[in-house]
């Protein structure tokens, strides 16, 4: 697909077979991307698809495990951000890196090679030239903290070019911009292209990629899922492109299942297999959110007025791009985050004021997505890690004294039952592989009569076999009468497991879709932020 560019031009940047592995996650798996001079190359993909890792490698923040980078045809090693700048690769990050108390001019001079004396007049002249070239109006003496976000970003772009960058990386540049800001950015991009700058444009918004990209590469789970060349972009209709990109972003299988009518029967088979032979709607409501809101933390948005019900024996999926409030939702249910308005009810009883452990005693379990950062204590043994949610409870603790023998006996049968591969019960949990860590968490959450379980990205970063194992465990769970919420960015997974799929978008529930032949399309549209209705209008 992508091999149709003319061979005469030497690409500005070639990333060849870049692989980067983090513990338990293959962030980039043999990704190859080519960017030409005077071209905007969009990298499209959900968060966690590997975009950030890829640009971190390009900008020198990370080093690849394998693969090579070619700049104007010559292989280069980018070992640090300084190297990247020296080679003419400038990056504009999502969040401003300008110093708000300094003026535009001062910020720009910070980045320049420092001589003893500052050349204020020279800098001013240069800024005027560059601003004129890019069609930007900017007051050199304005404090950057006073500028609008769009203006700040333009200063960042100038700052990146200030050091002679010929390759410009823009990381989610529109996420903080108003509509007008986006338009101005597009204007600047056009000017940059005329200058011959190669631009890497990172986004997870489909329409943006189509609007600005001369070429679009789609990343999915660390791999290059596909690429659309400029010819394809020019010749295909918007509708076809959209369908094609949704297919690439969210997986081929789901699209096929959705598209091909004869496969629909298979899907219902799967549902029957998962124990829903009795109509789901008749079970008791185990978990209910009534316009529940919670505040976000850091860059993670909160949730606003989310309402849904999950019944006995039902699996509700929560789909959405990463960073749309998933963590807030999970933590609000688990009791780790305060609910600011609305209620969370377990078995018809409001539990807003109950602590994490009180909710656990009612049968609620939350399996976190952040295994290393939240799930386990690395330096603690496997067996104690399994029992972390039962600290102080008899019969494992009596009068506050730990009964190691009892814990180890129970842990050893759980290790066997959940197939945790470990060198021993006392081995530090930090030494387990990602999959085995996940099994450890499963053992912890599911071993003591769970009734309502929230899974957050249950199979993220796991190999196929473990993934299947985890999904089987979830199906068993609802067969035994539990209610389950699966929060995942992997739509295939949700369609395979769930009875209904809710879509979370910017902390709000964009809609709930019954799992059926149209589900992929409906969910995909809801995720990208245009419902069917809007599109028709």
């Amino acid at each position, binding site marked *: 697909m992508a091999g149709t560019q003319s061979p005469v031009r030497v690409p500005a940047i070639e990333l060849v077979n870049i692989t980067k592995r983090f513990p338990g996650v293959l962030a980039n798996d043999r990704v190859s991307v080519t960017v030409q001079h005077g071209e905007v190359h969009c990298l499209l993909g959900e968060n966690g698809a590997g975009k950030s890792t890829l640009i971190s490698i390009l900008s020198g923040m990370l080093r690849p495990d394998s693969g090579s980078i070619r700049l104007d045809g010559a292989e280069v090693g980018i070992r640090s951000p300084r190297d990247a700048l020296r080679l003419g690769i400038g990056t504009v990050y999502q969040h401003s890196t300008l110093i708000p108390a300094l003026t535009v001019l001062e910020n720009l001079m910070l980045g320049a090679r420092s001589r003893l004396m500052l050349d204020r007049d020279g800098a001013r002249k240069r800024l005027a030239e560059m601003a004129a070239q890019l069609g930007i109006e900017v007051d050199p003496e304005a404090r950057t903290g006073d500028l609008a976000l769009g203006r700040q970003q333009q200063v960042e772009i100038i700052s990146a070019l200030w050091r002679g960058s010929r390759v410009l990386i823009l990381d989610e540049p529109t996420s903080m911009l108003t509509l007008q800001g986006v338009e101005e950015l597009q204007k600047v991009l056009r000017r940059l292209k005329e200058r011959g700058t190669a631009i890497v444009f990172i986004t997870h918004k489909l329409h943006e990629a189509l609007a600005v990209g001369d070429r679009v590469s789609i990343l999915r789970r660390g791999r290059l899922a596909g690429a659309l060349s400029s010819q394809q972009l020019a010749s295909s209709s918007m509708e076809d492109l959209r369908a094609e990109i949704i297919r690439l972003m969210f997986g081929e299988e789901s699209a096929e299942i959705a598209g091909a009518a004869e496969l629909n029967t298979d899907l219902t088979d799967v549902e029957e297999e998962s124990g829903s032979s009795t109509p789901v709607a008749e079970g008791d409501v185990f978990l209910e959110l009534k316009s529940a809101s919670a505040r976000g933390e850091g860059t993670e948005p909160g949730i606003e007025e989310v309402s849904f019900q999950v019944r006995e024996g039902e699996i509700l999926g929560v789909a959405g791009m990463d960073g749309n409030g998933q963590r807030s939702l999970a933590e609000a249910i688990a009791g780790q985050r305060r609910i600011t308005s609305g209620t969370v009810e377990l078995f018809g009883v409001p539990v807003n004021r109950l602590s994490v452990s009180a909710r656990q005693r009612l049968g609620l379990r939350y399996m976190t997505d952040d295994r290393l950062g939240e799930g386990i204590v690395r330096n603690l043994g496997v067996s104690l890690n399994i029992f972390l*949610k039962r600290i102080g409870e008899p019969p494992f603790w009596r009068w506050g004294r730990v009964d190691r023998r009892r814990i180890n006996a129970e842990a050893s049968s759980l290790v066997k039952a959940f197939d945790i591969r470990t060198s021993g019960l006392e081995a530090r949990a930090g030494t387990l592989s990602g999959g085995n860590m996940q099994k450890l968490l499963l053992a912890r959450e599911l071993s003591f009569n769970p009734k309502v379980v929230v899974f957050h990205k249950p199979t993220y970063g796991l190999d196929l076999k473990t993934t299947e194992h985890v999904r089987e465990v979830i199906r068993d769970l609802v067969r035994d009468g539990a209610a389950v919420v699966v929060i995942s960015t992997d739509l295939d997974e949700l369609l395979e497991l769930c009875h209904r799929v809710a879509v979370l978008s910017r902390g709000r529930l964009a809609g709930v879709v019954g799992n059926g032949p149209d589900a992929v399309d409906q969910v995909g549209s809801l995720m990208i932020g245009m419902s069917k209705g809007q599109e028709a209008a």
Partner: protein
Amino acid sequence: MALETETTADAALAAGAPTAEPSRLVRWWRTAMRSLAPVILALIAGGLLMLALGRNPVSFYVNVWQYGVASGGWQNSAVLMAPLLLIALGLIIVFRAGIWNLGYDGQYLMGAALVAGLGPSILPSWPAPLAYVVLFLVAGGTGALWTLLPAVLKAWYDINEIITTLMMSFIGIGVANILVKGPFQDPTVNIPQTRTIPFDKMLPDLGSTRVHIGVIIALGAVIVVHYALTRTSFGLRLQVLGANPRTARHVGINLRRVIVTSFLWSGFLVGIAAAVDILGLWAYVRANWNPAYGDAVIPFVFLARLNALVVVPFIAFYAVLSTGGDLAAQQVNLPTDFLLVLVALILLFMTVIEYLGRRRDMGQSYLSPGLKEALRHPLVRRRSAQ
């Protein structure tokens, strides 16, 4: 290809990858080296320094041994160990939970002032065991009370405890001075100091030695604290909170309760240290007196990796160095402050090893993640330990 291997090793290290786990023996050896190396290096560097000053380091260290251990010197060292150990235990408890209690001076002096102020009235008139118990509880309770405000501010409002405990410490030192110069002032002397506890009402000595039973109390506390930290649910909760506050919240540990209780126990033990020290050794408190035991203890607490048993030999080492060193320094005509130089050298080498350890994978850091976090962001609220 050296370049490439370095890259991969670095990447694995940066990501904390579960690379091949070194054997238990190797890990133990690394930890032991990391704990002992700063002390050994400091003694060597101190020796070189003495050479440079034209003193004989060998005779200095021999004298330290002579005065600090041999010929009855061990008794003075043992007596000094009592408050040091109790303070070390108090610090270990909070440090394990990833919390800094740097208010030990204020907590100690508040306890000391009350014991020295009330002791001379209570001890002669009450039955001895009752009086001791009351004085111990008063001192321990005061120490605990002095941590309550920082504890509540941290638990409920996530306010950095480094700042609050230090500020409470200054207040405590000031209040103790007011008590000594005001209500507890000995009316028979012109010096600002409390009355003196009668000699026969002090803590009893062991046999014919000068070692009082406070030392036994401190060693008993070592056993109790070690047991509590390693065998009870309380200890595990502290450990989980210290290792990762997010995990602690996730698994349903009541963070506020753990933060407040660990602070209270810490202050209680520091207060008990004051009671043992006043009732066993000093018998009175003079205004503006501050032994600053905690400052001396902190490096050894980290060298012992917050282990209540392992800290005992380290404290013993310091006690010997301190008691023997005072006299030994005078012998070779050095100011007694030279001992502070030795402690500072230990800290210096700890820093060097910490830095090298981060560069190469040399065992674990002296500080737990929670403690590091508090140091990095002393002025902002931390969202992690909500």
